[in-house]
């Protein structure tokens, strides 16, 4: 390759680079800060979506914890079912009684706590904590108890 050809090639490459670099080009996905949180109004329940505990809101008037557990035990509404929500909380946990155990919440269920599935326990604990805040939750039925438990942070 002689000198003029090399020079022409270099100039061409430079020009191509300049032309290709012009304008607004597509980019990869860029990550920013954490997703923003909006406000919600209504009562939070935790149902299962594809085996994951997921929050749902029911536009109800604020209610007591024992009432909430009765509603949770009643299972997903038709709308929620249509959206693919399920529940593992058995209907026979109601009626539940709410008490205090140290700095935590004591929930007395109407059914054996040992027989509850892990997901059902998570549903109950998260639903209780949605109202009770950070306080750990202990589930009891007679002598049986589970906890104190916290709603998993990964949600």
């Amino acid at each position, binding site marked *: 390759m002689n000198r003029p050809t090399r020079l022409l090639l270099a100039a061409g490459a430079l020009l191509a680079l300049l032309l290709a670099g012009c304008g607004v080009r*597509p980019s990869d996905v860029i990550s*920013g800060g954490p997703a*923003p949180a909006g406000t919600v109004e209504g009562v939070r329940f935790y149902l299962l979506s594809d085996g994951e505990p997921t929050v749902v809101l029911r536009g109800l008037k604020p209610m007591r914890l024992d009432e909430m557990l009765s509603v949770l035990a009643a299972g997903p509404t038709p709308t929620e079912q249509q959206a693919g929500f399920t529940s593992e909380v058995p209907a026979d946990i109601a009626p539940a009684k709410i008490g205090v155990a140290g700095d935590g919440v004591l929930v007395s269920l109407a059914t054996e706590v040992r027989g509850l599935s892990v997901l059902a326990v998570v549903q109950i604990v998260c639903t209780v904590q949605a109202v009770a805040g950070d306080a750990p939750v202990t589930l009891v039925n007679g002598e049986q108890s589970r906890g104190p438990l916290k709603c998993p942070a990964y949600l």
Partner: protein
Amino acid sequence: MTRWGLGLRGRLLLAFAMLGLTTTALVAGVSYGQARTVVLQKAQDAAVLSLVDEVTRLDPVRELPPSPEQLNAIVAALAEGPDAAAVLYRDGYASSGLHPSEIPQPLRAEVRDGRVVWQRFSRDGTPTLAIGTQLRTKRPDGSTEPTGIEVYRLHPLADEQHSIDQLAALAWSTGAASLVLAVLLALLAARGVLRPVSELGRAARRLGEGDLKTRATVHGSDELAGVALIFNQTAERLERQVGELRRMEADARRFVADVSHELRTPLAAMTAVTDVLDEEAERLPGDAGKAARLVSQETQNLAQLVEDLIEISRFDAGTAALACDDIDVGAAIRATLRSRGWTDQVTIALPDRVLAWLDPRRLDVIVANLVGNALRHGAAPVTVDLRAVDGWVEVTVSDYGPGLTPEVRDHVFDRFYKADSARSRSEGAGLGLAIALENARLHGGTLVAGNRSPHGAVFSLRVPRGGTA
């Protein structure tokens, strides 16, 4: 000249243009890239911040899964101006100005990680910024969790594209301007370099043509100035040496002139004595008479030589002057031949009334020398032709002898040149043709020697009819 046939100017131009282009391309390219990044980043950050802000200030979500009305309300709150928005919840969605399938798939995948993400892509040829985020909700313990609602907004970057295009146009015009500037600078630099070079070239040519006083102008103290300095030193040395040679030659000529003058007076006396001797030679017995005639002959030759030398000296000294007259050239030539007693040996072709403004004595010398030479060295018949051509008079003396060999022809007008080294001394010192040539030149004419076919030498004298005066 280089391989490409470019001169120094072309090479300088090319180098400057390449330098200017490369520098401008680099500077303009880098600053264009930086400016573009800044413009885009600003626009993107503003769009992302605005979306995040608006999402934070949305009306509270009352139902999950959200009702279609609720999704529509969110879309209505987020779609503004040229921006299109879409809200997705599981399989359901509400949107304004776009279909969820238009949202780049990688972006949708990244949104699930719980961060605000964005991506530039081309939407129907328009550069567009797609921003996506989850709508999360705060839990009583302060942490957040996803509501399952995903919000997307497409923000066209047409304005930014316009600004960036303007930047590019600016960069291009800067490049063009700098190229023009580089070419101008190159021309200026080339002038600065080439002017001394061409000056030096002119000086060298003048020196070569014999103008020894030529000097190059020395500008500044660069390499070219060094060359000019060396050139000047060389020219100076040359001038000095040539001057020295000329002085020596002049000295030698003056010496000859002086000697000739000094010899003239004693020779005049000797001639007077030998004239008497000549008259008495008849009466002198035997060898004495021969010796007296020999002395007389040699004295005459010597006197002629001295006269010739004095004549040559006058030419050399530049003191030879023309004493012109309006003469009939044919008549003058006839007179010359008659006075030498050559009329019978020479064939003449002399038209009448060829008038010219010439020095009759010098014309006589020239013709006598040419004819005398022809008679001595050539063979009969010797002819003298006279022709008047335009403003010139041409006298041609030719013979039918063996002609001139190339070597003789080159030197025939040299002083003391004798074609035949074995020639007797009495036939002349070899100054005749030199004097004839000088006389021709003095008239502003030429005298050339040549041969003619089949054999014989030709001497042609050409002098202007009007003379040089």
